[in-house]
């Protein structure tokens, strides 16, 4: 590689890094943070409903176009998943990535609960302990550091 090309590459790297770093601000306003945490937590309800609907849709899945376009649970599942993604992007607009991303794990809590009530899946101590851990963790993330 020529010297000029190498220098050019290094410059591009610096440009990419500065692009990623520039417009991001950390919102110190805790009320705004609480709103974003709530929005993200609400979004996980959609994601859980989407996963349940997809599971329902896949139980009578067949590889024909007519069967797929008339598979309402599957379609509804994808629509809800799209809505979840949209809400997540809106939450990420102001919310910190390191705060919002772990909240997605709440969908495990809802899916486990819904599977228990709808599909009569069994619960066991491991699952229950995991759910308790996720809920405690998200609560702590939402509460933040208090001075």
């Amino acid at each position, binding site marked *: 590689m020529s010297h000029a090309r190498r220098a050019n590459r290094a410059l591009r790297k610096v440009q990419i890094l500065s692009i990623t770093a520039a417009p*991001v601000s950390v919102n110190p306003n805790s009320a705004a943070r609480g709103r974003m945490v709530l929005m993200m937590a609400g979004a996980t309800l959609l994601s859980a409903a989407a996963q349940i609907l997809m599971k329902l849709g896949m139980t009578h899945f067949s590889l024909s176009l007519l069967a797929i376009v008339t598979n309402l649970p599957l379609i509804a599942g994808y629509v809800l998943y799209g809505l979840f993604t949209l809400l997540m*992007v809106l939450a990420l607009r102001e919310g910190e990535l390191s705060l919002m991303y772990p909240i997605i794990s709440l969908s495990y809590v809802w899916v486990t609960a819904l599977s228990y009530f709808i599909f009569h899946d069994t619960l*066991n101590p*491991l*699952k229950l302990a*995991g759910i308790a*851990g996720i809920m405690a*963790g998200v609560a702590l993330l939402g509460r933040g*550091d208090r001075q």
Partner: protein
Amino acid sequence: MTSTPLSSMLLVLFGSVVGSFGAVFLKLGAVRLTGIMSLLNWRLALGVALYLASSVFYAFGIRHGQLSVLFPMVAVGYIWTLLWARLFFHERFTRSKMLGLGLVLGGVVLVGLGS
């Protein structure tokens, strides 16, 4: 007891890295949102594409081997994302964040082990 092939572990781990970059690009796109049309920007599109790609790696990864070994490896994605948040967006690691993430990680692993 069956063993988990290395290829399955690598697929799941690679999927978790790909997915964490999906989150980074969603964040990059999100902070640039100005109106409804700005939803169609390449950063958000790439973020969604990386998420889809990560789910493909994950789906192939868990075809063989034990879920109890593979599922905790999915949780590693949370750690990657935290690292990128610090590196690219200069987000702070506060005590409540680390503790909260620790509880979430433990919980995700336990739910996976119990499934």
